[in-house]
């Protein structure tokens, strides 16, 4: 049995760890709330924009825009935007995304895919594993933001429009709930507009002409998709970290309980041993 002193030291150290995990959990909970709020605030814009994009695309369906056209000759060059976290300690969050990315690389052929990394974890994993790295945005204090989403989206849209890539995907963690985040692949380009539903195609007077307007709408739509992926990813990351830190905290509590029990046993044993020594000493004196 470990000595009493050693057990006490262990307990103290586990208690310290527990304090840290508890603090991290609370920080993540607060950040999660903020991330969810940001996602809710962004929804009105995204919905309206995709409605307008759908409408104008439908009214122009006889002359499809290049960003809406699939490459007839198949995919020879594919771009992937991989969004992971910058830091770990968030359970299986990063490794789930990396696993899904590996799947996607296998599907399209590793040498055909160019990857743009957002977040250090994904980059660290893939940098020595023979993938084509297009760009990386790591160590983003405060997470990826709207401006970065705009820059990345514009760059990828130009790559597609100028024929340097045949499809662009984004891989991020979809925030389903605080307990469930699902790695999700979404096609950014070519854009697949949802069919105009019950609302019907509306006749707009447009300014400037519909073709120019559609071009602007489509480019803005890609920005919105990337921005939404960022928001989802951030909410997911904080949720994953919160869950991971919660279970770490309760694991620590369990360990403290077990160690305390062990410590009490060791103390009891020490007392018993001392008593035995005293009694046997006294017996010996009686002679």
């Amino acid at each position: 049995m470990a000595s009493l002193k050693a057990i006490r030291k262990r307990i103290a150290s586990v208690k310290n760890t527990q304090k840290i995990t508890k603090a991290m959990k609370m920080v993540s909970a607060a950040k999660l709330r903020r991330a969810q709020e940001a996602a809710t605030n962004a929804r009105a814009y995204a919905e309206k924009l995709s409605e307008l994009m759908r409408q104008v695309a439908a009214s122009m369906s006889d002359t499809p825009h290049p960003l809406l056209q699939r490459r007839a000759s198949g995919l020879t060059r594919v771009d992937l935007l991989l969004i992971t976290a910058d830091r770990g300690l968030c359970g299986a969050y990063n490794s789930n995304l990396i696993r899904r990315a590996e799947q996607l690389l296998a599907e399209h052929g590793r040498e055909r895919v160019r990857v743009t990394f957002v977040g250090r974890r994904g980059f660290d994993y893939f940098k020595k594993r023979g993938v084509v790295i297009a760009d990386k945005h790591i160590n983003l204090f405060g997470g990826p933001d709207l401006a970065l989403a705009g820059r990345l989206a514009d760059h990828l849209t130009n790559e597609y429009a100028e024929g340097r890539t045949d499809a662009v995907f984004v891989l991020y963690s979809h925030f389903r709930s605080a307990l469930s985040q699902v790695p999700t692949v979404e096609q950014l380009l070519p854009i697949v507009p949802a069919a105009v539903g019950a609302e019907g195609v509306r006749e707009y007077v447009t300014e400037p002409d519909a073709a120019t307007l559609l071009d602007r709408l489509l480019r803005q739509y890609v920005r919105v998709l990337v921005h939404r992926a960022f928001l989802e990813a951030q909410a997911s990351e904080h949720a994953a970290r919160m869950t991971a830190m919660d279970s770490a905290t309760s694991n620590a509590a369990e360990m403290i309980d077990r160690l305390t029990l062990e410590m009490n046993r060791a103390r009891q044993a020490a007392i018993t041993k001392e008593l035995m020594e005293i009694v046997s000493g006294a017996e010996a004196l009686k002679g």
Partner: protein
Amino acid sequence: MATRLLLRIVTPQQPILEAEVQEVTAPGTLGEFGVLPDHVTFLSSLECGVLRYRTFQGEAAVAVRGGFAEVRANVVTILADDAVLAEDASPELARSERATAEAMLKQAPFGTAEYHEAEERRRWAEARLAASRWRQVS
């Protein structure tokens, strides 16, 4: 005959404004346009500039940073890349940002991406400055 419009301004970050108004004047790509009740179904892209609207209480202004405007069934929806209400626009901040943008403009070669970005920033600072001035007038 409708007598009022619903004006909604939203940005990718958050909704900015929702108000009942009588008239909206917005900085369209092909020039400023005005919207009165019972306007035709209309869609336009916007440039950086000042959007003004008139309510029963008076007039107000909002700086908008490009985007789109939809007019349909007496609802004007502005999808702006960014928007700042005149009362929130700080002239000091706008001025200092304009100075930064102008310094960038001097260094960036004409026609490059940096040049366009600096130009866009300068226009956005101008728009906010104009909006903040507007507040002082009214």
